[in-house]
Structure formats: C-alpha cells, structure tokens
C-alpha cells in the first residue's frame, strides 16, 4: 500500500498513527508546504507570551517520522492531484503515486476587502509558526497594535503580545467578543477581564479604510496603529480537492470515515465540512481535537476499518490572562443559567431531553462529563439532572452506568 498524506498537523498525524496501528508495512509519504517538524498551531500565542518555545511546541517527538517509517517531504507543496491515475504532483516536479490519499490541507486566513490595506507595511496573519515569528520581529514597547477580529485567534494573539507592546486594540464587526462560542450575556464577562488586563475594544464596527498609521472605522472612530494583525476568519483550503473532482461545499465533503466523493481520496481537519452531532447540520468545525479524530478515522478506513468518527461537535477550551472558559455543543433549546457569580458563569442548554450545549467561565472542572453527554446524546431522564446541573459528577448517573465506567475495563 502507498499512502500519501498532504498536510502535517493534527489530522495528518492522527492518520499516520491510525495507519501504523494496523499496517506496519505500508509506505507512508507525508507532504507539507511548511518546512517545520509537526508543531501545534494553537501554541503560537503561547510562544509569543513566553510560555512555550519551538522545541516544546513540537506536536510529536523528534523521532516521530522515523519511528513510524514516514517519508516526510517538508517544505514541499502539492500542486495537483491526478485522481484518475492516482498520483500527486509537487512544486519540485516530483510525481508520487498513491493507493490511498489524505487531504489535510487545513485553512487559511480570510481577509475582507479593506481600503488602503495594501499601504499598511506591518501587517500580519496569526495562524502559523512563521506568522508568529514575523510578528514577533515587529513587536516593541513603542508599538501600537490593531487586531482586526475578536475571535479565538485575534484574542489569543492579544494575550500573547500585550506585554511586549505599547497597546493592543481589537476591532470586530460583531457586537460581542468570541461571537462563535459565547452569547450576548456571557461575552461581556470575558471582555471585562481582557479590558482589566489592558486590551481595549471597538465592537459593532469594522475598518472602512487604512490611512497612513490610522484606521478609520465604520462608526467614525479613528484608531492609530503601528502594526495590524488580521484575524477576521479562516477559509478551508479546498482547491486541490475541487480540481481533483471532490464534492466541495463550504469545506470538502466527507462521510464519517473521512471519505470524499472521489475513490481512494480522504480528507480531514479544517479543510472539511462535517456533521455537527449536536445539531445534525453540516458545518466547518476547524478545531484541533476534531481534526485529529477525523484524520484517525481516515487512517482506519484506509486500512479497512469501518468505525468512523461521527461525534464531532464544536468544542473550545481556552483561557485569557488566567480566566478559563470551556464551551461545547450548540446553544439551541432551553437555556439553564445555573450560576452567575463573581467567579463562575455556567449555562447549560437542554433540548428534547438531552444536553446539547454548555458554557463554563471560571470554574471549568470536570467539564468533560458534560461534553460526553452531548456527544453520546444521553437522555437526561436516565440520570439525576438536578444533581448534574450543579456539578458535573458521576454520582448523577445510575449505579449500572457508574459500574460500567469505574469497575470495568474500557
């Protein structure tokens, strides 16, 4: 067997590990545009913050490719997939044949048109290690930074660089920060915490134009800056798949075994669209745990396995300046505001007798017990919901369920 993997992040690594658990002999070729050993993308903000370094950012040990007998072509870009003849072509002129192919090409920054953006000399994205290193070179105590986008990437960037610059101002068109994971009630709590740390915000407005070192916003405000970080959003890298004939919606269309619509081509991670198990709807869920699990499902399927990955849900664990938040699922159904105190905010969402989502800010301990209920669609009638809503705890489960968890091997 000749396995070819395009990509070198969570989905690609998940695929390698699954392949090697059932096929020690097949040839694995991994091709990645980035020249680096596999590293954790979400750690780039921690790198600038000084909480990690390039060595510790490695997603797998130095001998990973060697131990798993992977031929890693790093700094090499696939330019075309020839699905008919089962080959990929690279920018170095190589042609590599595959029996099974994984497309794990990830996503890239989306930049909406903004007048005068081309005149901004110090502008950066914040997705890759190279982005972070380029931004780091521009940082300095006299630098004013404008971050466009108050999502996960923009705010983690703000946290990572705040102590190294004069100021950080964040602008977002949405009326609240982290609009994809927090509702209008929860977001101001986190915003207040970020403001107390020193980050300032303009919400409900976007940049109309950049003029010299000033951003003119749609609400009339003028924000001076030296550096601009563009963190508006990301778009899946679907072009290779599309040209190869794979069906593409917002992302590459895959089934629960990560199979695309073209024979012997699989796709996983941020470049795909997946069924959200909490809603049944298809969406792009660009999240690291889901990417790994999808990549792993692809690896299993390539070696004849059939137990796919069908429990993808939106889920985020993130912290800013010591404040932790964990959210999962979706916020449809009945909201149950369990706690709203100085130190903790907790809201659960229940629909059709099942937990479908939650937001925890501050106290996040044992959150996975809630996550698992969402993934497994456990009927709340089978446990003590009053007990569970107060604390995620195994006491809320039936004795039989508990014995299965604690007295049996799994």
């Amino acid at each position: 067997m000749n396995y070819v993997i395009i990509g070198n992040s969570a989905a690609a690594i998940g695929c390698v590990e699954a392949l090697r658990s059932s096929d020690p002999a097949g040839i694995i070729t991994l091709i990645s545009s980035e020249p680096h050993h596999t590293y954790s993308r979400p750690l780039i903000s921690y790198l600038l913050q000084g909480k990690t370094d390039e060595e510790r950012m490695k997603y797998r040990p130095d001998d990973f490719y060697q131990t798993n007998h992977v031929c890693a072509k790093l700094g090499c870009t696939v330019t075309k997939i020839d699905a008919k003849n089962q080959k990929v072509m690279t920018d170095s002129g190589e042609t590599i044949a595959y029996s099974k192919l994984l497309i794990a090409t990830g996503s890239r920054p989306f930049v909406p048109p903004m007048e005068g953006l081309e005149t901004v000399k110090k502008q950066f994205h914040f997705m890759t290690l190279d982005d972070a290193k380029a931004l780091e070179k521009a940082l300095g105590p006299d630098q004013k930074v404008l971050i466009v986008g108050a999502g996960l990437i923009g705010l983690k960037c703000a946290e990572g660089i705040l102590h190294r610059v004069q100021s950080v101002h964040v602008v977002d068109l949405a009326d609240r920060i982290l609009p994809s994971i927090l509702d209008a009630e929860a977001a101001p709590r986190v915003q207040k915490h970020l403001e107390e740390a020193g980050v300032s915000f303009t919400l409900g407005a976007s940049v109309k134009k950049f003029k010299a070192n000033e951003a003119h916003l749609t609400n009339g405000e003028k924000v001076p800056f030296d550096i601009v970080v563009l963190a508006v959003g990301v778009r899946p890298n679907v072009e290779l798949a599309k040209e190869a004939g794979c069906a593409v919606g917002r992302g590459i269309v895959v089934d629960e075994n990560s199979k695309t619509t073209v024979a012997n081509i699989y796709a996983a991670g941020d470049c795909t669209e997946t069924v959200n198990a909490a809603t049944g709807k298809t969406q792009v869920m660009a999240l690291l745990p889901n990417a790994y699990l999808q990549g792993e499902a692809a690896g299993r399927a390539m070696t004849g396995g059939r137990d796919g990955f069908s429990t993808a849900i939106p889920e985020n664990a993130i912290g800013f300046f010591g404040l932790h938040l964990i959210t999962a699922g979706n916020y449809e159904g009945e909201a149950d505001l369990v706690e709203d105190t100085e130190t903790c905010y907790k809201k659960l969402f229940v629909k059709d007798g099942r937990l479908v989502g939650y937001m925890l800010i501050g106290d996040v301990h044992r959150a996975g017990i809630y996550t698992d209920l969402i993934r497994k669609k456990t009927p709340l009638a089978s446990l003590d919901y009053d007990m569970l809503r107060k604390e995620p705890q195994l006491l809320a489960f039936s004795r039989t369920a508990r014995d299965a968890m604690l007295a049996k091997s799994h």
Partner: protein
Amino acid sequence: MKRIYVNEDWCLGCHLCEYYCTFANSGLESMAYALKGKPLSPRIQVEEEGEIHFAVSCRHCDNPVCVKSCITGALSVEDNVIHCDTNKCVGCYTCIMACPYGCIMPATSGVIQKCELCTNNAHQKPLCVQGCPNEAIVFEER
C-alpha cells in the same frame, strides 16, 4: 493491563486515598511534611452523597479521547499509562473538556495533573490503593 477499579459498596468515604495521592505526588518522603498545613491536591477524588461513596481517578482508557484531543502533544500513552509531559503542557484545559469521567484537573502549577498510577513518582505502584483500608479501590487486571 492492571488498572484501578472501584468497589463502590466497600468505600467508607474516608478520603484516605486523596491524602495518599497528594503525598505520593508531593515528592516528599514524609507524609506529615507533605500534608501538614497544605491544601490537598489529589488526582483521585471521592464523590459522595448520603450512603454512597466512591473514588474516581483516570481510567487509562484504551481509546483515550484526552490524548487525541491534546493540542500540544503533552498527553501520550506510555506502556498503557496515560502520561502528561508537564513541560509541554500549557494548561489550555482541552483535556478537561474531553475526559468523560472528569479525571483530569488543573494543577497548582498552572498546567494539569492526572493519575499516572504512581509510575511518575517514587512509589511506582498506586499508593491510594495501598492506603485504602477496605479494598474499595483495587489495582488489578479485569
């Protein structure tokens, strides 16, 4: 592989396992020095209400969703034990979000901590099990 299993009916709710766990992972030789005047920070926790008591610690799952979800690669499986490289961990708590049993917890150092069956300390065998007075937790093959 040997794991820690819970005999719920035998648990007295004495919480000794939590004390032994804190001691085992303190790096100190004396239990008194390890515990006196310090908050407990066990990797095993007793849940209880009324007559029901039981201790919960990492199940060392065959299909560990915490390891697969870990964004840094700090969590890994070594000889069937789920291990955390605290030097790599940044304390994002993705594993806390993922663990279905609520067995991974924040550590006072800012990263996470979890039961590693005492393979990560001087005791090498689970000290909670050795200290349990009623065999409510056992370390065996099942």
